[in-house]
C-alpha cells in the first residue's frame, strides 16, 4: 500500500478546483435548511465566489502541471483550458439566473448546489486521464443536469425535458460504459496512456475489438455533445428546461464532453484513426446539415438555438475529423468562442421570456432595439458571432476548424461546412431583422429593466466574443501548445 496517499499535497493541489466545488456545493445545499431563506442573492453570490476560487485553483494547479492520483487525473494545458472554460460557463449561467429565478419565484439553494455539482463533474472530465474517472465525471455532471432540466417542477415542459434527458442520457452512458468494458477486456487497463501504449505496441488487441469499443464510446459521447444521429433529445430538452439551464446545458456539459471525446479519440483510439474517421466525418456533416436546416423552420427561439447548437457540434466534429493537433487546437478555440456567444444569446432569451417563460417565439423579439437598445446590441454581437462574421470569436473558430480540415485534406467536408454556414446566416439574421426593423410588441415592452448582475451576464460573454475575434492569438497559442494529448 502506498504511504498515506491522502496526505500527498501535490495530488490535492492538482485536484483543488473539484474539491472546492464539491465542498462549497454541499455547504450551499445544507445552508438552505439552516438559514431558511429563499433568496438566490445569498446562494448565487456564494456560488460565484466558489467558481472564481475554483478558476484561480485551476490556474494555480497548472503552475505545477502533471499527473495526480497515480495517473488517474492529469493536469495539462488541455485540462486547464477546459476547466477554466466550464467554470466560466458556470459564472455566466449564474449571473442571469438571479433575475430569472426571482421572476419564476423559484429561488432555492438547490439550483446553485446542483449547478456546482454538475460543474465539478465537468471539471473532473476535463482533467481525467482514466476511463473510469471520465465515466464518474460524466455521471456527476449528467445526473445534476437531469435534475436541473426539470428544475421548475410545476412546469409540464420542464418535466418532459427532464424525463427525456434522463432516459436517453442514461441509455447513452450505458453505451459508453460498454466501450470502457471492452477496452479493459482487450488491453487490461483503463488508463488512457497505457491503453494507447498497448494499442500501438507489439501485443496490440484485434483492431476489430478496439474499433468496436471506439464505436460504442462514439455513441455515448456523440449523444452528450448532441451530434447527429444522436441529437434528437436536444431541441425538446433545451426548449423545456429553464432558460439559464438551457444555456448551461448547451455550453458546459457539451464542452466537457468534447474534452473527453478529443482526449479519448486522440490518445487511446488514435492508432485506429483511419477506422473511426469516416464515422466522425458523417456525423459532422449530418449534424451541420440537420441542425442548420431544422433551425430554419423554428418559430421558438430556444428551439432554434438548440438546433443551432447541434450544428455547432457538427463544426467541432469537423475539427475532430481532421485528426491532427491543429484540429484539437481549433476545436478548443471554437468551444471557447461558442460558449461565450451561445450562453450570451440564451441569457437574452431568459431576460425577454418573462414570467412563466411566455415569450419565446421569434416574433417576441420585435422592436427590442427600440425598447432596450443595449440588450439588442449585445444579442447582435452574439448572433453575428454565431453566423461567423469577422471580428467575432465565431469567425476565427470556423476559420481555424476549416483550416485544420483542409490541412488534413477534408476538402468536401470543408466545402459542405462552409455552405452550411451560409444557410445558418439566414435564421440568425431573421432574429436581427426582427429586433431592429419591427415595431415593439408585448414582450419587448414588458421586458424588465436591467439589473447589474444581468448586465454583467451580457457584457462578459460579449467581451469574450470580441476578444476571441480581435486577438485570437492569445487563446489559440495556448490551445496550440496544449494540443498534444499523447503523453
Amino acid at each position: 500500500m502506498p504511504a498515506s496517499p491522502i496526505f500527498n499535497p501535490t495530488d490535492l493541489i492538482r485536484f483543488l478546483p473539484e474539491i472546492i466545488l464539491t465542498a462549497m456545493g454541499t455547504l450551499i445545499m445544507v445552508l438552505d435548511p439552516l438559514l431558511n431563506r429563499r433568496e438566490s442573492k445569498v446562494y448565487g453570490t456564494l456560488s460565484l465566489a466558489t467558481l472564481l476560487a475554483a478558476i484561480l485553483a485551476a490556474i494555480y494547479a497548472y503552475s505545477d502541471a502533471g499527473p495526480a492520483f497515480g495517473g488517474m487525473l492529469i493536469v495539462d494545458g488541455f485540462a486547464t483550458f477546459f476547466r477554466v472554460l466550464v467554470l466560466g460557463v458556470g459564472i455566466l449561467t449564474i449571473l442571469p439566473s438571479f433575475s430569472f429565478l426571482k421572476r419564476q419565484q423559484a429561488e432555492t439553494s438547490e439550483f446553485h448546489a446542483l449547478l456546482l455539482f454538475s460543474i465539478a463533474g465537468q471539471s473532473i472530465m476535463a482533467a481525467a486521464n482514466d476511463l473510469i474517472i471520465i465515466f464518474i465525471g460524466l455521471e456527476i455532471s449528467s445526473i445534476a443536469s437531469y435534475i436541473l432540466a426539470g428544475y421548475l417542477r410545476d412546469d409540464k415542459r420542464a418535466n418532459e425535458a427532464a424525463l427525456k434527458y434522463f432516459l436517453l442520457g442514461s441509455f447513452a452512458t450505458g453505451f459508453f460504459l460498454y466501450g470502457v468494458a471492452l477496452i479493459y477486456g482487450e488491453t487490461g487497463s483503463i488508463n488512457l496512456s497505457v491503453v494507447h501504449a498497448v494499442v500501438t505496441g507489439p501485443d496490440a488487441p484485434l483492431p476489430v475489438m478496439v474499433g468496436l469499443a471506439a464505436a460504442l464510446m462514439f455513441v455515448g459521447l456523440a449523444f452528450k455533445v448532441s451530434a447527429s444521429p444522436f441529437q434528437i433529445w436536444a431541441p425538446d430538452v433545451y426548449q423545456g428546461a429553464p432558460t439559464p439551464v438551457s444555456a448551461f446545458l448547451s455550453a458546459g456539459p457539451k464542452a466537457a464532453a468534447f474534452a473527453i471525446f478529443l482526449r479519448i479519440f486522440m490518445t487511446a483510439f488514435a492508432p485506429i484513426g483511419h477506422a473511426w474517421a469516416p464515422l466522425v466525418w458523417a456525423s459532422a456533416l449530418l449534424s451541420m446539415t440537420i441542425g442548420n436546416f431544422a433551425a430554419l423552420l423554428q418559430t421558438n427561439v430556444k428551439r432554434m438555438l438548440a438546433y443551432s447548437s447541434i450544428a455547432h457540434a457538427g463544426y467541432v466534429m469537423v475539427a475532430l475529423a481532421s485528426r491532427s493537433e491543429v484540429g484539437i487546437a481549433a476545436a478548443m478555440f471554437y468551444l471557447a468562442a461558442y460558449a461565450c456567444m451561445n450562453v450570451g444569446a440564451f441569457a437574452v432569451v431568459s431576460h425577454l421570456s418573462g414570467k412563466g417563460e411566455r415569450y419565446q417565439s421569434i416574433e417576441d423579439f420585435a422592436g427590442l432595439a427600440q425598447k432596450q437598445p443595449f440588450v439588442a446590441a449585445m444579442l447582435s454581437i452574439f448572433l453575428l458571432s454565431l453566423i461567423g462574421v469577422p471580428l467575432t470569436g465565431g469567425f476565427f473558430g470556423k476559420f481555424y476548424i476549416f483550416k485544420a480540415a483542409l490541412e488534413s485534406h477534408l476538402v468536401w467536408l470543408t466545402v459542405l461546412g462552409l455552405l452550411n454556414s451560409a444557410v445558418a446566416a439566414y435564421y440568425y439574421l431573421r432574429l436581427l431583422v426582427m429586433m431592429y426593423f419591427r415595431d415593439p410588441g408585448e414582450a419587448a415592452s414588458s421586458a424588465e429593466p436591467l439589473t447589474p448582475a444581468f448586465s454583467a451576464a451580457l457584457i462578459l460573454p460579449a467581451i469574450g466574443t470580441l476578444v476571441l475575434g480581435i486577438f485570437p492569438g492569445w487563446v489559440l497559442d495556448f490551445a496550440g501548445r496544449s494540443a498534444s494529448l499523447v503523453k
Partner: protein
Amino acid sequence: MPESYAEQYFPVLVQALLAMALAAGLLTVSYLLGKRVRNRVKDMPYESGMVPTGDARHRFSVKFYLVAMLFILFDIEAIFLYPWAVVYRELKMFGFIEMLVFVVPILAGFFYIWKKGALDWSPDSTLNRKR
C-alpha cells in the same frame, strides 16, 4: 488445453444449448402430457388460498418511494462501512480520513433531507405544509 479465443468458450456454448434444450423440452413434455382444466376459479391469481379482493393496482403515497430511495442510499453507506471496519486497524489514520471524506458528505445529505422534512411521516408534516 484449448488455446484459441473461440475454443475457450466452447463449453459455455454447450452448457447454454443444454440449458435451453432442457427448459424447452420440459415445457413441451408438460404441454403434451398434462391435463388442462380451464374455469374461472382456476384462472384466478394465486393468493395463498385466499380469495383475491379488489385491484392490485392501488395508488401508493409518494412518500413510500421517497423513503425507499433514501433507504437505499443510506443502506449502501452502511454496507461500505463493514469492510472498512474490518481493516480499520491496518489502514490507520489514512483509513479514518478516507472514511471521513465519504461519511461527512453523506451526513450533510442526511441533515439536508431531515431538515427538508423528507423523513416526516405524519400528514401534517413540514413537507406538506410547504406545499
